[in-house]
């Protein structure tokens, strides 16, 4: 039997190893950067590795775009005993977002990091950045519940370090990183308790296998407790409204490049984990039975949309305003989940992607403003839109996408969300979504007014940002416009992903029959 298994798992081409290469490439780059230790080599190595990751992620996305999935067995050990990497439409989509963001942010980081972080830390900074990329992609790609925790901690620990690097500009980055560490660790520990309780009930750690064994266990108190622990634990990482306290300070005081990367990917990967556990591990029926979606996540999502937007309106710091706006936008994503339909989930997946690129544009513009104006307080960036026309225009595009103006990416996701609301018969919800978008108009308009209608601050440098910042910023800005006009790619990928998620553990039967066969031997 052993030989049969070996033959079965012999991967003949590099293509078969893509899922593990996706993780290994950034993972090996991090220690290489540290061991070589040359500051001048750190950035090129990080960039090449994230470019390779992007290529692999694109290949994986194409392979699974028909709704199939790839199951990669680590070390040739078949699941459920071995660790499995399972790539399907939902996580290939998130992998693509993470690697694309890393590839776009790194060229931007080169000048931004040089400006904001002392030279001696650069090599270690890029090593940490690659570890963060590894962790986030690992969380998304793995099909093993405990593996999620391990990768989650890899990404979190490197994130705390990256956030604390903002301390050279403002010492509050240190306390922000510390608070994030405390809350993030509590969240991760809650998550691992949840996994423990699930392991206790099912005796397996493979998510697909777990899902099969949880069928009909909805009334089991241990399973319910596990569900609560996992949702609250990941909720802390997602920054679902009452669990968001770490986010504003961490985003405000982290270096611009870090904020850009985190805002576009970290919370998104966490949302993916929530989706994966809610819809694949726990069956949709179970989740629906407990009413948690409708009566807990729904109202909290609405609260986030309004409370965080209102706070954003009264900020006087552009960067902090964007942080609060992120909390509000996470509310939209949670609302899509709470509506519990394929359209709602599609809206969540689309918004996950669109909000990622929108925030990438805006936070990169923040980085450019920090470089030229010294800080992003509104009175310091007055009139900078005219001094830096390209950055200003990118902010306008990003802002319009944040509001959800037709022609931008943000419109598509809000449109899907409104459609899901009508489909579910919640017409009043559609009105609420529009109302909260009006709040976004207010906070975006304040920035545009400051940038264009005020006289420039005398201390600021009135030149355009360097080309290395402008190009990535505009790649993301054009992506915002492109995905707002040509929606085929994004809607197809997102609806395939949503279909797969709503189907629960369907498509896992192959694994469980293999497991049954293994058990027979």
């Amino acid at each position, binding site marked *: 039997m052993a030989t049969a298994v070996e033959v079965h798992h012999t991967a003949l081409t590099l293509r078969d190893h893509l899922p593990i290469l996706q993780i290994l490439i950034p993972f090996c780059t991090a220690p290489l950067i540290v061991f070589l230790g040359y500051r001048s080599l750190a950035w090129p190595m990080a960039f090449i590795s994230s470019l390779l990751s992007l290529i692999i992620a694109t290949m994986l996305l194409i392979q699974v775009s028909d709704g199939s999935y790839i199951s990669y067995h680590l070390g040739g050990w078949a699941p459920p005993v071995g660790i499995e990497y399972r790539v399907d439409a939902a996580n290939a989509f998130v992998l693509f977002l993470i690697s694309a963001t890393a590839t776009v942010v790194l060229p931007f980081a080169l000048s931004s990091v040089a400006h904001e972080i002392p030279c001696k830390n650069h090599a270690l900074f890029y090593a940490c950045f690659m570890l963060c990329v590894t962790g986030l992609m690992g969380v998304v790609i793995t099909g093993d519940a*405990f593996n999620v*925790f*391990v990768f989650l901690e890899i990404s979190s620990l490197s994130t705390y370090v990256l956030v604390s690097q903002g301390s050279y500009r403002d010492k509050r980055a240190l306390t922000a*990183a510390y608070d994030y560490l405390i809350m993030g660790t509590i969240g991760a520990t809650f998550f*691992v*308790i949840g996994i*423990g309780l699930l392991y206790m009930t099912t005796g397996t750690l493979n998510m697909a296998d777990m899902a099969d064994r949880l069928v009909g266990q909805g009334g089991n108190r241990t399973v319910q407790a596990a569900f609560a622990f996992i949702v609250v634990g990941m909720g802390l990482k997602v920054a679902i409204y009452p669990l968001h306290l770490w986010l504003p300070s961490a985003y405000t005081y982290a270096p611009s490049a870090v904020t850009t990367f985190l805002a576009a990917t970290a919370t998104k990967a966490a949302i993916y984990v929530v989706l994966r556990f809610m819809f694949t591990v726990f069956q949709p029926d179970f989740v629906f039975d407990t009413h948690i979606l409708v009566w807990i996540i729904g109202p909290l999502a609405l609260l986030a949309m309004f409370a965080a937007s209102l706070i954003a309106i009264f900020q006087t710091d552009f960067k902090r305003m964007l942080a609060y706006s992120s909390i509000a936008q996470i509310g939209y994503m949670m609302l899509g989940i709470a509506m519990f339909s394929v359209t709602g989930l599609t809206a969540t997946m689309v918004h996950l992607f669109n909000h990622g690129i929108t925030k990438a544009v805006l936070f990169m513009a923040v980085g450019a403003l920090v470089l030229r104006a010294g800080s992003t*307080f509104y*009175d*310091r960036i007055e009139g900078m839109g005219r001094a830096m026309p390209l950055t200003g225009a990118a902010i306008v595009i990003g802002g319009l996408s944040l509001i959800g103006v037709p022609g931008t990416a943000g419109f598509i996701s809000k449109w899907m969300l409104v459609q899901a609301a009508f489909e579910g018969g919640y017409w009043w919800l559609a009105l609420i979504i529009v109302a909260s978008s009006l709040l976004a108009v207010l906070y975006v308009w304040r920035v545009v007014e400051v940038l264009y209608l005020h006289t420039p601050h005398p201390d600021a440098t009135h030149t355009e940002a360097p080309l290395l910042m402008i190009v990535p910023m505009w790649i993301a800005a054009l992506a915002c416009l492109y995905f707002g006009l040509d929606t085929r790619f994004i809607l197809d990928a997102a609806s395939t992903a949503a279909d797969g998620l709503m189907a629960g553990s369907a498509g896992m039967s192959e694994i469980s029959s293999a497991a049954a066969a293994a058990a027979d031997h």
Partner: protein
Amino acid sequence: MTLEFFLGHVNYWLFIVLMMTGFYIVVSRGNYVKKIVGLNIFQVAVFMLYISIGKVTGGTAPIFPTNSQGKIKIDPEIVYSNPLPHVLILTAIVVGIATTSLGLALIIRIREEYDTIEEDDILEIEAAMAQAENDEHGSAMGGRA
């Protein structure tokens, strides 16, 4: 709830007590080092949960006996404890150490910058900084910094 039930699950009760103790320390203490200690207790409690899960009644250490030639001799009569949770917890211990050391490193940097590690004092300093920013940037824009 009988006494037997209570005693039979004693390590689970202890897990809950330990977990809540750690959690309470994290929430209630203002000293940053004490918070980290609380976080440690909180994490260690989870180790206890996992190791309790791995226990099989009457099970022995999961090591296969070998005969004199060093060959593994599997006796189906012997009951073994589940080794998997132990392995998982080894990973979690490593994660815990990394978190603790990073937390302590951050505290050292905070001490250098703020000259204190008491949360109340730090919040006071940060409130003063926010107030200064507000005076400088906020009042002109009609909002708070």
